């Protein structure tokens, strides 16, 4: 069997795809990639369907041994990579693919400047979907590997025993996530807050607290005062909902949030800005801007257009040329269209 063997797990790495759709009504979290854009880009770099499952790396990645004739890998997100081969170690660049061979050791170090990075392997992981998905929801232990994070000794079977034809690929340019305020649509329970609280929410800076995980970001800033009780009759949630418990400090829900909740939600981050929010690290400061549904749709169309452009304009890597030089000089040996399984 061809596989990657986990020697050291890093911190809380999990298998994720684009989420487990269709089971929320049973209380099963959607889970899936916190940054679906980086997951899709990593897949494109190794020639996969864009929705193939990847290892999602939080903060610090794993140490992996290659037990396959060859495998093409790519990491999207600013992780520090080191390749151990024949007793020597050298750095590898992220945001491009590399061809590894049997006996290689890949160390994915700290993730820098963002919360997450993704490891894609050419052909994908040979694991059985659970309720139609390879995403991991740690709370209910639902997903591959028993629904748990990577552990020392975990085995990640590969569908392909060796790489196919073609060279390694790189993004034509680093993908940019934009900046400025996070755009939200107010509600569904903005009316449960005083008008002053809503105005405060839309003007004051909120800092990402230390207490963050795949379920949500705790935000710290001016207290948001409820007009009545903080509690509501529990209702359905989506990633991006900003709920405010009785202490007035907002929580921005992310991929592994529970399906229903009983706190009033002052606003919801629009889908175009959610990947950027999910990449946030503790200490980062956000402000929020209310937009309309029409503005949200246009922002999403623009993001989809930029993602599609990035997915389909990949550069063949020229051996010996480093990527920063390539980006700088825009010297591209040849543009190729990534195979897109959709």
């Amino acid at each position: 069997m061809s596989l990657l063997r986990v020697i050291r797990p890093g911190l809380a790495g999990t298998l994720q795809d684009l989420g487990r759709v269709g089971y929320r009504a049973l209380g099963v979290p959607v889970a899936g990639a916190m940054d679906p854009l980086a997951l899709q880009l990593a897949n494109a770099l190794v020639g996969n369907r864009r929705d193939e499952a990847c290892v999602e790396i939080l903060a610090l990645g794993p140490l992996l041994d290659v037990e396959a004739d060859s495998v093409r890998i790519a990491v999207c997100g600013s992780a520090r990579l080191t390749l151990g081969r024949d007793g020597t170690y050298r750095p590898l660049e992220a945001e491009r693919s590399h061809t590894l061979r049997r006996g290689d050791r890949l160390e994915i170090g700290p993730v820098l400047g963002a919360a997450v990075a993704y490891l894609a392997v050419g052909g994908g992981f040979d694991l059985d979907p659970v309720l139609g998905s390879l995403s991991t929801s740690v709370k209910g232990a639902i997903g591959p590997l028993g629904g748990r994070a990577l552990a020392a000794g975990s085995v990640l079977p590969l569908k392909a025993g060796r790489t196919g034809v073609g060279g390694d690929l790189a993004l034509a340019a680093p993908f940019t996530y934009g900046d400025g305020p996070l755009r939200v649509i107010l509600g569904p329970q903005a009316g449960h807050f005083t008008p002053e609280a809503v105005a405060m929410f839309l003007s004051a800076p909120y800092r990402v607290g230390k207490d963050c995980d795949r379920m949500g970001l705790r935000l710290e800033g001016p207290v948001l005062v409820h007009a009545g009780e903080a509690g509501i009759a529990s209702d359905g949630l989506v990633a991006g909902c900003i709920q405010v418990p009785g202490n007035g400090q907002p929580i921005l829900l992310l991929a592994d949030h529970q399906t229903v909740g009983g706190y009033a939600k002052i606003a919801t981050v629009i889908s175009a800005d959610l990947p950027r929010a999910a990449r946030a690290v503790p200490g980062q400061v956000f402000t929020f801007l209310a937009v309309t549904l029409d503005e949200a749709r246009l922002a999403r169309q623009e993001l989809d257009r930029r993602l599609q452009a990035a997915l389909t304009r990949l550069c063949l890597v020229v051996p010996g040329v480093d990527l920063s030089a390539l980006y700088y000089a825009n010297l591209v040996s040849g543009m190729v269209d990534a195979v897109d399984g959709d």
Partner: protein
Amino acid sequence: MRIWPVGDGAFSVEFGDRIDPAANAKVMALCAAVLDGGHIPGLVEVVPSFRSLLVVVDPLLYAMVEGRVRALAQDLPEVTRTEGRLWEIPTVYDGPDLDAVAAATGMGRDAVIVLHSGQTYGVAMLGFMPGFAYMTGVAEALRLPRRVEPRVRVPAGSVAMADEMTAIYPWDSPGGWHLLGRTSVELFNLDNTPPAMLAPGDRVCFVPVTS
């Protein structure tokens, strides 16, 4: 009936703002209408809750789905509460909060057990964790707010109640409800289709057993 956007990828169809069987019946009627009414392009999934239906959509098709669902919600058939399956849950009433509940409600342990097991509860929604069913219908005399100090770990299988709701914890988890007893019934199993045993609309009785 009101519809609120929940970001650009979902909207909530609300029937009132409190836990209420009539509102829940409308939610379930709309849920059935949406799921049975033929393919709606852009519809991802629906999440029924006590008094609202969350409709998850493709953000680019939000307006179209909202239009379809609004029309369905405005034209709901006269809601006759459909009687779901009736489950009898064998329950050992030996929970750690039984004495505290007896003291707080001013009745004896046995009276608490008789009252809790004498009702038929309705499953209003699933959520919180996979397979966790919120059941309404706790007798007025038994209703207590959640514990001031939530437990860090409530064992799987615990039968619990808070306010007008009762539930069974399918997994070990933190929890603030009052623990009355336990059951060995398996509420969530990935090998079953669907994996959750209970569904909204189902009715549940707790039957006292000794072990």
